[in-house]
Every structure is written in structure tokens, then in C-alpha cells.
């Protein structure tokens, strides 16, 4: 429980909470970026360098940009007029709160057994690569297939309808 952790946790929570609550969608995406970068920093704290950099590459370089693009193309940047029932939102927030309470309780009461702190584990890129190519080669292939399918699917979905039917 170090200062760094607290600091990073604070930025993560601030960023993500802002991302979920700000009115302007572009601000939301920027706040989300902040949150996810601090999350990546947390991964680095935990010694998972590769995952941390991948996180930045994927979320900042791809997902956030994609979201920004989607916001621009759907003209969602202008704050919309609020309609609909507020009770629906309140109930949603309540459910989230209950979920947090349950999870928090579970964490609080359940992790005593794992209190022993082992030495800092190593996760060199080489070993990750070797593991990907041997033990985890099937998931890797499946992920590759999934990504290809997603690429093609996203392309077809985003294509102009006029061109698709041509």
C-alpha cells in the first residue's frame, strides 16, 4: 500500500468516474484515456510491463481514438436534451452500488489467506512469447481468428449501405 499505488488508484478512479459522468462525450473519452493510462501504470507497478504497454497501445492508440471517431461521426459531441425517467437511472446507480458493496465485502472477507507477499515475479517478454507459442498457442490462434473476423465485420458494418447493396 504505497503512495504510488494510492496516487495511481486515485487518478484511475477519477478518470473513469469522470468518463462515466461528464456531459460532454469528448471529455468523457479524454477522461477515460487518463483513467486507462493510470491503470496501465498500475500494471507496470505490478511488474507486468508487457501488459501495461499493450494496454496503452490498444486503449489509447485504438479504442479511445475509435470512440472519438464514433463520437465525431454520430455528432454526439453536442450535449443532448435530457428526456426520459430519472428513476431508471437512479435504480441503475443503486444496482452498481450494491454490486460494489457485495464485491467489496467479498474482497474484504476473502483475501486474508493470500496475505503472504512473494518475491517480485518476472514476466520477461521472451517468456511471454514462448508461452504464447507453446502453452497458449490455441487461444492465440482463436484470438487471431476473432480479430480477423472483427476486422472484416467492422469494415462491412461501417461500409456505406449504398455500396454494400451494390
Amino acid at each position, binding site marked *: 500500500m504505497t503512495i504510488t499505488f494510492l496516487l495511481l488508484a486515485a487518478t484511475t478512479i477519477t478518470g473513469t468516474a469522470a468518463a462515466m459522468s461528464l456531459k460532454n462525450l469528448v471529455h468523457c473519452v479524454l477522461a477515460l484515456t487518463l483513467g486507462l493510462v493510470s491503470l496501465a501504470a498500475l500494471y507496470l507497478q505490478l511488474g507486468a510491463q508487457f501488459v501495461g504497454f499493450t494496454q496503452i497501445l490498444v486503449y489509447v492508440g485504438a479504442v479511445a481514438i475509435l470512440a472519438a471517431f464514433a463520437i465525431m461521426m454520430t455528432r454526439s459531441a453536442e450535449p443532448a436534451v435530457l428526456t426520459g425517467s430519472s428513476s431508471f437511472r437512479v435504480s*441503475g446507480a443503486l444496482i452498481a452500488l*450494491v454490486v460494489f458493496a457485495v464485491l467489496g465485502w467479498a474482497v474484504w472477507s*476473502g483475501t486474508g489467506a493470500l496475505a503472504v507477499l512473494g518475491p517480485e515475479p518476472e514476466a520477461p517478454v521472451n517468456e511471454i512469447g514462448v508461452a504464447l507459442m507453446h502453452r497458449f498457442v490455441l487461444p492465440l490462434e482463436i484470438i487471431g481468428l476473432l480479430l480477423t473476423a472483427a476486422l472484416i465485420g467492422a469494415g462491412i458494418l461501417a461500409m456505406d449501405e449504398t455500396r454494400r447493396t451494390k
Partner: protein
Amino acid sequence: MNWIVRNLWLVPVLPLLAAGISALAKRKSRAMAASLAIGSMAISFLLSVWAFAHVLLLRSNGQATQQVFNFRWFQFGNEWLSLGWILNPLTAVMLVMVTFVGMLIFIYSVGYMEHDDNFTRFFCFLALFASAMLGVVIANNLLLLFMCWEIVGLTSYLLIGFWYEKPSAAAASKKAFITTRIGDLPFFLGIVWLYAQSGTLLFYNNGAGCLESTSINHLLTQPTPLGFCSATGIALLVFCGAIGKSGQFPLHVWLPDAMEGPTPVSALIHAATMVAAGVFLVARVYPLMSAHSGIATELTTSTALQAVTWIGAITALFGAVIAVAQFDIKRILAYSTVSQLGYMMMGLGVGGVAVGMFHLITHAFFKSLLFLGAGSVIHGCSGEQDIRRMGGLRKLMPFTFATYTVGMLALCGFPFFFSGFWSKDEILHAAHSWNISQAPYYMGAFAALLTAFYMSRQMFYIFGGKSRLTESSEGHSHSPVSPDHSSHHGSNSPHESPKVMTVPLMLLAPVALLLGFFGTPAWPWFQSFLDATQLAVDFGALSEGSMLPVMLSSSVIVLLGLGIGWWIYGRRPIKSAEAPDNLGKLSPPLFTFLGHAFYVDALYGATVINLNTQLSKISDWLDRWIWNGAVKTVTNIVLGLAHLDNFLDTHVVNSGFDEGCQSVSRSGQILSLLQAGRIQGYLKIVAGAGIAFTLLLLWKAKI
């Protein structure tokens, strides 16, 4: 291991690549397809020469001239299927021959097919064919050989039927394909049998291959229910494949019809390479063919080889007799090819690998020369193929005439200077000293006489006298005009072919002329090269034993044949295209009989095909009346039941079902209230369920 041995696969793969690329190319990219095919073939030729030189080098160093490279392909069960390639004198010679002749024919095709719309496709097929043929040559595995063999069959089909708009070409391609398939079925059975017996299909594998002594001895001790050992059985089955592909006697019918394809195809497939594949196959599996269980002396000949000899002798005579009475320029050459292939088989049977292969190589050169010359003649005569309507081309097509004469004399085996003489003489000599029977020798000698005769007949028809091309070319559609020539050569006057066609001819002619000197009895370089024996110059060998008498008698036979040809056809120039054949005047019924090739096609039509048709008619009748009737009856019964059911359904079941439907629909209306159309609502339910589950798990963990 040497680089060339390790990379021998490049030889067939390069044309394959060329074929693949030109298959993807546009129809318009003619230059690319042609240059790819020719270029790949040229590189393959260089590689083959390299391989040949490598074998020569090994030989001069006194090392073993046979090198194999095997690799594992895939595993099934506990066994690995290995493939591989082999470099030995046989392979090297064939490689050089196939790539050289192939390259020349490719170049020639550029000129011949110039006006064809499907130029690109043609070169794609040619390259694929060359690739498969080279694959057959280098394969060190019977299965690999068989695969390439089948591709050869496929490309032959595609090329014969290249002008598929022509019904005769389509029919010929089908015929070729089906006929060779008939031979391939026993071949495949032989492969399966061999695999079952010896457990490997590799030819040579450091003592473990199926052609090496361990395996052969094992095969010799395995009896079959029919009395002969399984080695003989397998050899005979494999020979069936060779019969089909090399157009031997019962299955020769496809080869003359295959002349429907473009002439370069005839030259490439039906002179130099594909038909030689059968001979080559027999040569390749010669250890299996010659395996005999009797006393291991030089004198006994295995049953398989006897079969090879007899089939070969019959084919040689048979083809020569038929060729006498043909009028289509390419058909004459086709029957001559049948006859010469018979010679080769006979040579393999009586004399061994070297004898047969020597004739194969010389024949490949002079026959492709002849075919290309014939193509040049046809091209010059605007697609005319009937020799009765040619004539007088000696002045008009001097290059073609000169080279054609060389090829013709080589085919006849004109004494001493022409390659055909030496290779044919070799076979006749071996047949003369065969210990089983003298009949093949006499059959071969008579066939040689006929060869000289029909070739001189053809020469006089084509080149002698005056041009008969212009007279009444309409009305006679005896030989179909090739679609590629009809439109572009409006004028009917014969003319010399372009350079791109004559140059390959001029390149082939000296080879056809001089190749024979590599295998004279005095200096049997070729034979010693193939058999890996010591080479010595020995002019005494010419006069040894029966050699001189056989040589002299065959010379006399050739001269006699040419003389008869001149007597009948050359003395007086042929007057007109309508005039009856000079030989036919002697005995018209016999001549017609020969002209229809002994009515073998008709015989097959009347027996096999007719039987097939009758059987299909019977099954059609059965289908129509017996089975269909049964089906109809069952149908009617079912229909009746269905009507009954329909009645019950409408009046009994439906009223109850409607009630059920209404209740379901009402409950659906109630449930649809849950479906609010708002994803987040569903998500909430999921989250609630998640909470419930977590609580349940925690509660259980506490207890």
C-alpha cells in the same frame, strides 16, 4: 550432398510456378505467359544440364552415379510417408531430353499459336504439363510418380481438348482421358499391392526402397493364388499403366485421335514426353520387371518382361501396318509413334533399360522434329492436314523440307548416319539374340520395312509433284480446319513458316541426325552410361556375333522399304487430290480395312461401349418400370394416409391446438412487458442475478 541433388525439385517446380502465375494472368498478357513458360523451361534445362554434368562428373570420378534425396511428407498412424527425388543417369538423360525438346516446342508454339485467342491458357497448360512430366522423371516414390502421372494425364486431356469448341477435339480428349484411366486403374492396384507387400513406395532408400534387393527378394517369395509370385503380378499391373499411357496395343486407340490437339501438343505429348512416360515407367521399375524367381542366370527372362516384349512387338507391327493407309499427315505420324513405342517396349523387354531408353531418346528428337515439321506444313497450308491435297512443298518450304527429310530418314533408320538406325538396330539385335522366341525379331524387321515405306509415301505425297492445295478445297471437309488458321490466312498459297517455327526445327535436325553416334555398338557410350559399366571403343564389336548380319539386313530392309515407296509413289507424281491411292489400287478392301485401323475403334464400339450402352439401357428400364413403380406405389399409399391425416388434423386436432395457441399468445403478451426494448434494463437484470449469485456463493463459503 551436392546442391543440384538437394535442389533437383526446382526443375519441375519452376514450370509449375510459371503455370500458376500464367493461370492467374489476364487473357491479354500473352507475352508474359509465353516468356514465363519459356524462361522457366530454359532455367529447368540449364539445371538439367547441370544435373547431367554432375552425374557425368560422378561417373568420371568412379563414384556411384545414383543419388537420392528423401524427406518425410506426413505421418499416418505410426508410419511416415516419405517422398523424394532421385538423380541417376536415367533421370539425367530424361531430364535433359524433356527440358530441351520441351523448350524448343514452347518456342515453336509461340509461332504456331500466334493467332489463337487462348494463347495464355495454352502456355499455362504447356508449363503445367512440362512440370508434371519432369515430376514423373525425378520422382523417387511410386506414389509421387503416380500423382505426377495423373497430372500428366489431366494436362493431356486439357491440351487435346484445347479447341473444345470442336466436337471432335472434345471427344478425342475424353477418349484419351478415359482410355488412359483404364490403364491407370491396374497401375494403382499395383501400387497398393506393392505398398501392402513391401511397406514402402520409395524406389531407393539406402537398401530399404522397394526396388532394392531386400524388397525384391521378399516380393519374389510371396506367392499369389494364381501361381506366380507377387513381383510378377505387381510388375504386370504396373505395366498396364504403361500400356495405357504409351499407347500400346489394346489401349492405343486414343493416341491417333489425340492429334486433334494443336500440333505442338502432338509433338510434346504424343512424341517426346507423355507417351514416353510409359516406357520410362517400365525402365524406372526395371528391377521389379526383371525380377525372376528361377535360377539366377542371364538366360531366363521374367514373365513380366516377356509380356512387355510381346505387347511391344505386336504394337510395333500393328502401328506400322495401319500407318501405311492413312491420309492425315498427323495421323500417319501418330501411328508411327504407336509403332515406335512398341519398338521401345520391345527393346526394354529383350535388351534391358539402355536399349529401350536409347530408342526413346532418339525417337523423342526425331519424332518431335517430324511433328514440328508437320505443324509447319499444316501452318503453311493454312490448316490443311490431308496429304492428298498437299504436294510440291519442296520448293515452297525449303527449310521445312530439309529438316523433315532428316527426321524422316532418322525414323526410317537410314543406315549409318541417322540416329534411328543405331537405336533401332540395337533393338533388332537384342531381339535377334532373344532366347525365348525369334518371332519378335521378324515382326520388328517387317515393321521397319513398313516404316520406311509409309514414310517415303508420306514424303512423296507432301513434298513431291505439284501443289494440289488449290483444287476444290470446298466440299471436302475430310480434315477439319483448325480454327486458329482459317481466319488469318486468307490466301491459300503455301508459304514457309516464320523464323520462330523453323529455328527449333533447324536446332532439332542435327540432334536427330547425330545422336545415334552416342550408342553405336563400337562406342556404346549411352548404354554404359545408363548401366554404369566401363566404356571402351571397340570397333571389333561391330563384327562380333550376329551384329554385322543384323545391321546389314536392317539396312537392306530400310533401303528396300524406301525403294518400294519410290516405286509406288515417287515414279510418277500424284496427279490430283481425288486420284485413288496407288497402293490402294492393288487391293482396295484391304486398304480400307487398314485405313480404318483394323476397325479396332469400331470393335470397341461394338463390344465394350455397346455392352455399356446396353447395360445402361437395361438399368434405365429397371429404373423406369421396376423401381419407379415401387416408388409410385409407396407414394400412393403415403398419399392416401396423408389425406386421412389431413382430415383428422382439420377436424380433430386443430380445434384443440387453436386453444393452446391462444393461451400461448396471451402469456406472450404478458411476458412481452418484460421486453422493454432497453438494453440497460436487461443489463440490470443480469447485474441483479450476479449479485444474487455472489451472495449465494459467499453465504455458502461462510457455512
